[in-house]
């Protein structure tokens, strides 16, 4: 999904995240399918979700580092009812907390497998789902060997 033109007529197929000032670099990078993590340069701590101050030292100086995209399922739940009407055609689907190699934990979906097969501790890798405005939403699928 490296198409840079925005398809204005595209309709959202799920709730699409708003963009805050602090997270603009994150969402911009998703257009190129890159997952950036905010890093505090003062105390060398990873920060997630992106924000104006480092929650460890309250610092305001950051850099962005690209994540490897590899992670582990920390917690997982199969949704047997849709959280909102846009999700209805995906039921049952997996919502999971994924722990990335870089030490942050994010909420996402685990796809490309039977929902009941997803287990805590399982290795997963980053993949993307296109959003209607050209951004991409992080998703995860079981890690393919080799």
């Amino acid at each position: 999904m490296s198409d840079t033109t925005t398809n204005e007529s595209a309709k959202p197929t799920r709730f699409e995240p708003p963009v805050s000032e602090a997270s603009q670099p994150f969402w911009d990078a998703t257009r190129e399918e890159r997952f950036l993590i905010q890093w505090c340069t003062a105390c060398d701590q990873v920060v997630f979700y992106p924000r104006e101050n480092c929650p460890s030292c309250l610092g305001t100086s950051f850099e962005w580092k690209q994540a490897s995209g590899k992670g582990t399922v920390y917690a997982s739940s199969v949704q047997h009812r849709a959280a909102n009407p846009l999700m209805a055609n995906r039921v049952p689907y997996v919502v999971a907390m994924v722990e990335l190699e870089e030490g942050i934990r994010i909420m996402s979906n685990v796809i490309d497998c039977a929902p009941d097969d997803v287990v805590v501790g399982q290795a997963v890798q980053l993949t993307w789902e296109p959003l209607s405005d050209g951004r991409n939403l992080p998703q995860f699928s079981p890690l393919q060997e080799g």
Partner: protein
Amino acid sequence: MQVNGLRGRAAIVGVVDAASPTGELELTGRALEVDMISKALDDAGLTIADVDGVTHTSSSMMLAEHLGIHPTFTDSTSTGGSSFEVHVEHAAAAIAAGLCEVVIGVYASTPRSDRKRPRGGAGRGGPPGGMGASPMAEWEMPYGLQAPKGAYALSASRHMAQYGTTSEQLAQIAVSTREWATMNPEARFQDPITIQDVLDSPMQASPLHLLDCCLVTDGAGAFVMTTAERAKDLKKPPVYVLGAGTCHDHMMISQMPDFGTTPGVQSGKKAFGLAGVKPGDVDLLMGYDSFTITALLHLEDLGFCEKGEGGPFVEDGKIGPGGSLPMNTNGGGLSYTHPGMYGMFLITEATKQLRGECGPRQVEGAEIAVAHGSGMVLSCMSTIVLGTEASL
């Protein structure tokens, strides 16, 4: 006996709550709140003219204006379901510090009957999707986690993977709680259930089944608190605040530091410390049961058992009638009532139990009770230790 600024300085002197087997109440909104306040004041032998402190989860100022009173203590703290434990904590501290003498707290919510009202009624909640740019909209809502049950499901999945907790053990909590509900004529559900019933009920957000989840009912309640001195001369035996503690360690579930441990560890330690009591001294635990996993986490985090041992701990039914740790004797949020923010009912039932007013479900000789509220998604825990005159 530990001496501090809180222990035994304030007392709950009036309580009331309302719910019904139909799940619905006649009144709604402010009218229901005022009905509760009047009945709680009457229970205490006080009138609205005595009140100089007001607590409320949205606006203590609007409530005071409606009541026509001019309080010198006001508190609109909202931490979700644990708000009422926080209100008791703050009121006890304010009374002990001399800021005020008589404080009221109230709650009314009618989500069930609101479904029949033309414009959504006067109950909780705003329009769906009313949330603008927020961390929750940005980092959680796109993924379709059912709110709030999906958050508790994630915690349960983690607890199971980490400690070997089983669905049968979680189900036992629902079964024991329903046993209590068979003795509460106001409970929404009063028929006994089995572990198999829970496991056979529809899966909502794995690993939580329908019967692992709380009800959606109308419900309301109120409390009145005053100084230990003034409490002695009122209608009912005083129920003293022995200790209190609150802690929150996240707001959104995705930011919970450890999905298998709540900030009840900290709130409980503070409350038990101020009260000078240990878990073994507790005769009754009223522990917020929005879901079976919620109740299980309280047992571990408050120190009634070791971390990870909550499953085996409940297996023999010890939290049910006749067990060594009576828990949620009104039938809880799982079987009595759950109007959205359940914490008020922890306080009303604990108070009634310590006064010996609970009829067939009375815990004999109860002297010390704990009301432990959980707010938002396991986010804010607030622990209140209550005791009779004999416990002082």
